[in-house]
């Protein structure tokens, strides 16, 4: 491969001199030829991606059309798994919980992330500390984060103790063991971690806005809200696309924090599509049905993001 790439430098120079004198046709042809090393840089990662990502994904699609216990050979059943989903109560619960998660986790992390970014965007004394403090949870492993929160949510944990100490003992609760509170209790640590990440994205976006726009609007007498509404928000459109993609993907792949805290329980009350997929595939050993759930997650993530991007591009045109 190296011989092909390097070639003979002297001959190469001569050829280039010659081509400069020749007509435009062959010259254009030569200039569009992709050097083999560039091709290698594209093809090698593509091959790696194809082998470790695309091929397993295609296999996943195939498995979603089978019934498989992970040990025997898979049995082809066509769309049987997808038909079963239509009558599966737990699947319905998981879809609803996932939508709720998307709205609460996604919506709140975008709102609070933007709020934090607006508060902390200006270079003031000590602002670095607050930025670091908000970003710190992103650094921790989510499973470690979940374990800390699990201890806090225990019946005699920090949260209940704090409630007792301020005279709100009547509100103490087995937060993770109650079907009414489990999902919301699990969202909190996920949010706690996500806000710092979204904040950083928005701060980067805010830093990119030309200050002249604000100065001009101040001269024109625009209020703070008007500046935010008519300058900041439109200027953040490209960051919003990134944030939305990140949030949708993170919501649909949210698994570790829920699994570590409640495993989708009690009685499927905090079941997300991802946890249902895992428990169906690896606990109940129904890998065909689990793969079908994975396909649904993929279609949802792809659908939401693609439809948003198409709309965003249309608006840009």
């Amino acid at each position, binding site marked *: 491969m190296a011989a092909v790439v390097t070639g003979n430098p002297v001959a190469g120079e001569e050829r280039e001199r010659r081509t400069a004198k020749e007509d435009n046709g062959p010259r254009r042809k030569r200039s569009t030829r992709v050097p083999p090393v560039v091709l290698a840089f594209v093809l090698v990662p593509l091959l790696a991606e194809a082998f470790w990502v695309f091929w397993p994904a295609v296999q996943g699609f195939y498995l979603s059309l089978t019934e498989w216990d992970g*040990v025997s050979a898979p049995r082809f059943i066509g769309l049987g798994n997808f038909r079963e989903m239509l009558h599966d109560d737990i699947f319905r619960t998981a879809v609803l919980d996932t939508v709720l998660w998307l709205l609460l986790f996604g919506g709140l992390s975008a709102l609070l992330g933007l709020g934090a970014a607006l508060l902390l965007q200006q270079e003031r004394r000590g602002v670095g500390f607050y930025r670091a403090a908000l970003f710190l949870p992103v650094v921790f492993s989510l499973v470690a984060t979940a374990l800390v929160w699990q201890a806090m949510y225990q*019946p005699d944990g920090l949260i209940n103790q704090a409630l007792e100490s301020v005279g709100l003992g009547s509100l103490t609760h087995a937060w993770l*063991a109650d079907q009414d509170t489990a999902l919301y209790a699990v969202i909190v640590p996920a949010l706690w971690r996500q806000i710092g990440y979204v904040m950083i994205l928005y701060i980067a976006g805010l830093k990119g806005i030309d200050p002249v726009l604000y100065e001009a609007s101040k001269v024109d007498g625009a209020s703070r809200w008007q500046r935010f509404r008519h300058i900041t928000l439109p200027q953040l459109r490209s960051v919003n696309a990134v944030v939305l993609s990140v949030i949708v993907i993170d919501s649909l792949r949210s698994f570790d924090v829920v699994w570590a805290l409640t495993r989708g329980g009690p009685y499927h009350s905090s079941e997300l599509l991802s946890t249902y997929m895992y428990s169906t595939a690896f606990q109940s050993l129904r890998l065909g049905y689990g793969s079908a759930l994975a396909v649904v997650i993929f279609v949802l993530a792809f659908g939401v993001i693609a439809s948003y991007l198409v709309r965003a591009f249309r608006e840009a045109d």
Partner: protein
Amino acid sequence: MTTPPPGRRQFLAGTGAVGAAALLSGCVTSGSTGKSESGGDVTLQSNLSAPQAKTAMQKVVEDFGKQGGAKAKLNTVAAETFRTQLPTYLTSANPPDLYTWYPGSVAESYASKDLLLDVSDLWTKPELTGYSDALSKLCTSAAGKKVFVPTTYYWWGVFYRKSNFAKWGVDEPKTWDEFLDLCDTLKGKGVAPIGLGAGGNTPWVASSWFDYLNIRINGAAYHRELLAGKHRFDDPEVRKVFDRWGEALPYFDPNSTALPFQDATTALLQGRTGMMLIGTFFADSVPKEQVEDLDFFRFPVIDPKVPVAEEAPTDGYFASARTSRETEVKELMRYLATAESQEIYLKHSSGTALPTHPDAKDSGTALVKKGRALIEGAAELTQYFNRDSSDALQPPADAALTRFLAKPKEIGSILTTWQRESQKIWGR
């Protein structure tokens, strides 16, 4: 001599070549379907991750290494990871050689797919010839091959602290009514009478109550048939189990589904709960000095006409049929079946289990003597919910039972859902 730095193009070409080579070698390795290389240490994959049990396993492996033959390498994996990964281990091209696991229907599910090593010849060796017929039957696959070597078994019972019962002035109950009276007394003293520990990652502990109530009310034969799919979970017989459970429900610790069994054990030791239906494995996490203060009683008799059965799960080892170290693996399994290795394990663990070798000495404590008498006096033995059915049936059971503990009035719909979810597993 100095080497000139490589040019940009050479560097790029070299990097590309290395990448392609790595990719190709990756393809070859991942596509390999051959057996693992022969020779080397026997890999013993263990799910015994409690500190005392892990140490005990290490001592056993070390002692095996001193025997002068093959050597073994212990690989301890967290119990939950081990359980979910087991099918992958056994079906992989390069599997670990030997596994801690369970005999009976759990082993049969793999044996029927030819994934387990046939160790019938081991059962003719002196180390195993003295084992009881019941154990021999438990370790035999439906095809008539021996696939398992049992090493220990343990019992389930209602555990309590002797000092606490003495302080509260209460005694062990024999019947269901006496049990409910005891619960009443403890509740009157401000103690949560029954601890459970079905929260966190151990919701399966709730199955012990279902198992015991079912074998006390409907008998062990019905229980096994139910778990094999020959009866329905929404049958009236199963409903009776929950009617009885409902009588005891007001006495359960309110944190029953909020704490894993390890935390529920702490609550028992600290006297915040009065008693706990649990297997002796919980003692592996109990400080040694407090183990002496532990005692237990038989799960109360509900219907005297029903023969008394007890849960006595057996633990031991099976090996992968794909191992390339068959001779070494069998050497290790033969060693594990000896009285000597089982005594080493019991000495370094909490010592509350019982050895399967007839000549092996148990720890000899009063607790263990009482446990042995409990099992020997039982008309029938069961293993445990997932061991008598399958691991796949455990999640629907966990969901149903935790739901019952929270909303006992919804038992009708709970049982219907439980049956429907289980049917999907039986029906495949």
